[in-house]
């Protein structure tokens, strides 16, 4: 059992426990904070896979922007913060069977796929390769530009939904 395996098991366990607590804890703010903990666990696993750029991007975007958005949304609707009802509905057995089927099918899919091997040795600076392939006409430039259009659509959509209508004031 090498050190990196032990570390991976630790981080994976921490992430899973935090993810479990997100859905079972009653206080919504605590759930949001456990979400932050599980996201940081995922970032640590990215680091162990030598994807340091992805780990940093995940912390910047998820913890630095999206978690704050979620916490804002929860805090600004404070009336509904305490979840006092029962945690289960009447059809919980059906949901359990469905999610068990989903888990089993995904596990079989992951286990039996022939994943391509990672290139051996040192490939150089991964961020440089990513940057060059993002603007290479043979590689990913179309998704790169479409991503900007997608972002502007998201911006316009969210402003259209969230902005209070000016006429009523």
């Amino acid at each position, binding site marked *: 059992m090498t050190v*990196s395996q032990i570390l991976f098991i630790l981080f994976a366990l921490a992430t899973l426990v935090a993810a479990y607590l997100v859905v079972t804890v009653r206080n919504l703010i605590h759930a949001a904070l456990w979400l932050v903990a599980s996201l940081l666990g995922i970032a640590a696993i990215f*680091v*162990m*896979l*030598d994807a*340091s*750029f992805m780990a940093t*991007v995940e912390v*910047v*975007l998820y913890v*630095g*922007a*999206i978690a*704050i*958005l979620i916490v*804002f*949304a929860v805090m*600004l*609707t*404070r*009336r509904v913060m305490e979840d006092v009802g029962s945690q289960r509905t009447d059809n919980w057995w059906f949901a359990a069977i469905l999610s068990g089927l989903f888990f089993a099918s995904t596990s079989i899919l992951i286990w039996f796929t022939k994943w391509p091997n990672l290139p051996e040795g040192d490939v150089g*600076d991964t*961020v*440089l390769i*990513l*940057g*060059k392939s*993002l*603007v*290479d*006409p043979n590689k990913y*430039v179309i998704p*790169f*530009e479409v*991503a*900007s*259009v997608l*972002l*502007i659509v*998201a*911006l*316009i959509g*969210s*402003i259209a939904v*969230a*902005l*209070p209508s*000016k006429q009523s004031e």
Partner: protein
Amino acid sequence: MAHEWIFIGILLLLGIVFAALPIVVNSIIAPRKPHPLKNETYECGMETVGDTWIQFKVQYYIFSLVFVIFDVEIVFLFPWAVAYKELPFFAVVEGVIFIVILAGGLLYAWRKGALDWV
């Protein structure tokens, strides 16, 4: 490459220890004279009235929304900036197109009044 991050992990753990140490020392050596008046919430000497909740001001949320969009844009631009020195001029123009499209989004938000603090 992952072993470079071990120092970061060590420093973050040390940071937690160094920050928690004064707090623990404080809770040990400080006097403990509990009084119900001390535990009340502070409101410039007056008593609080009503629940602790504040008026929903949608501006806070809209600023965070716009920030998320711009954050994703900037994160896309970092690999482009790192590869900048080895890119042909056409690739630099592609990045500039990316920025200009999102600047158009900022202009839309500005004209719609989403960036005003009313």
